[in-house]
């Protein structure tokens, strides 16, 4: 078992507008891309957010060695219960997924 962070070159999470969140996993190499693309299930990522798997959009982009997920923001940006205005911290939690 190894965590996702140690396998890839960078993980970024950001708002895509106030109502959506997007996570970009930059794998760095074709080999790492194959490992992440084949080994990281959408349901594992959904579980990090406590979200339904069907609510995630997934893009596996071999040209960039990137796997990208987008989902409705767990809380609307800036709502009373929001914890992270720019949605930036989620990348850390995604990085801790064990593959």
């Amino acid at each position, binding site marked *: 078992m190894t965590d996702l962070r140690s396998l890839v070159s960078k993980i970024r999470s950001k*708002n*895509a*507008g106030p109502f959506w969140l997007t996570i970009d996993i930059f794998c760095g190499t074709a080999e790492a891309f194959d490992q992440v693309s084949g080994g990281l299930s959408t349901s594992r990522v959904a579980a990090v957010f*406590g979200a339904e798997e069907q609510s995630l959009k997934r*893009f596996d*982009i071999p040209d960039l060695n*990137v796997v990208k997920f987008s989902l409705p923001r767990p809380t609307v940006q800036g*709502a009373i*219960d929001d*914890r992270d205005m720019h949605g930036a911290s989620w990348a850390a939690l995604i990085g801790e997924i064990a593959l």
Partner: protein
Amino acid sequence: MVRVLVPSGALGLNYDKQALQRGIAAKPDIIAIDGGSTDSGPSYLGRGVSKYARASTKLEWAGLMAARAEANVPLVIGTAGTCGADSAVDWMLDITREITAEQARPLKIAVLRSSQNPDDIAQAFEAGQIMPLANAPEVTSEDIRACSNIVALAGAEQIAAALETGADIIIAGRTTDTAIIAALPLMRECHAGGAWHGAKIGECGALCATNPQSGVIMIDFDATGFTVTPLADGAHASPHTVSAHMLYENSDPFILYEPGGHLDVTAAKYSAVDGTSVRVEGSEWVASDRYTVKLEGARPAGFRTVVMALLRDPHYVANAALWAKDIEGKCRAKVIERMALDAEDFTLELRLIGHSASFGALETQTATPFEIGVIGIITAPSEAQAAEIGKLLNPYLLHHPLTQEEEQPTFAFLFSPPEMHQGQVYEFALNHVLHLNDPMEAFGLEVIDID
């Protein structure tokens, strides 16, 4: 060909002066810079104010106005004053007037206004002219009327109308990030897919290249596509850095919706011109049947007071979650009893910084830290009520024991008083589009001559 100079991703983030000068020497047809986004949260739109310091905005804008005069081309700012509401546009106009006087140069300024009257938007909503986008909040016409500010995002058509006035400077309210860059290439019949794609690549300045904080980039648009060139020392674009920028803050890296259609970059080909510039062709613009503009709205969501304390005693650090839950329950009950508020009238939450503040129940780490910051977050219908709840919370954060058997503890307050009042808070209320029969229908255009 149309050459667009983009000094940085946003006015207020600074730009590399030497690189800007290189851009001016390359004779651009227009200088375009973004002034904001929703990314800093609902308060700026709610209040209709800028996030950036006036001093930074004025200094950077003065530099761009001088560069504009040297190049003798239009200078356009989109989403002026962070949120692009009329009050923020007026703030930007006021700064521009000051600089105009200081630079002693007569100017023609076009002002494009994007603010909407909430009553008009509520009526359009009732008339079925407003459609929700994916994951839009449920709204009623009453929710819409409660918004303190609603803006419509202008597209290339409205920027084109402003450019057609022959203005030297265009101060635009809320626009899409791309519209200010795409407008002139589209007016001059450059490739439409290339115009929008190049605009998306360029809207964050040099973020599509190495040395992203250098800001300045130049984009050349033509009949088949575009070429992007970062201008600062040490900044290089590659097919990878440019194509990867389509990922940035986009929920779909291949499709981008704009007023009047969408961009599809699925078939785009990125190629290196040299070590610094990248050529892109093959992106497609797909026009829509109906012309719609996106709406953003913010409405008041109560008044907030926050209270902070620090836990350093190992016994309390180890049991912080239990301690915080106990305080929340007891303090909420006291608010209901002593202030005659209902449970749904206010919120009171303790978050434990260093423990679970980032993700709450979704946190997966369990190691015990050596200290924990406690932040009590209160919202209430009035400022006075939020402050009063803060005072009710205060003694708990100072002295609350885990059990009645133990000695009364005392925790660290950072300030006297520990309560901090944030005033009115806001929430985003709209993720919708408005149907227009004419692109200018929802926007105002004014031309001001300053001698």
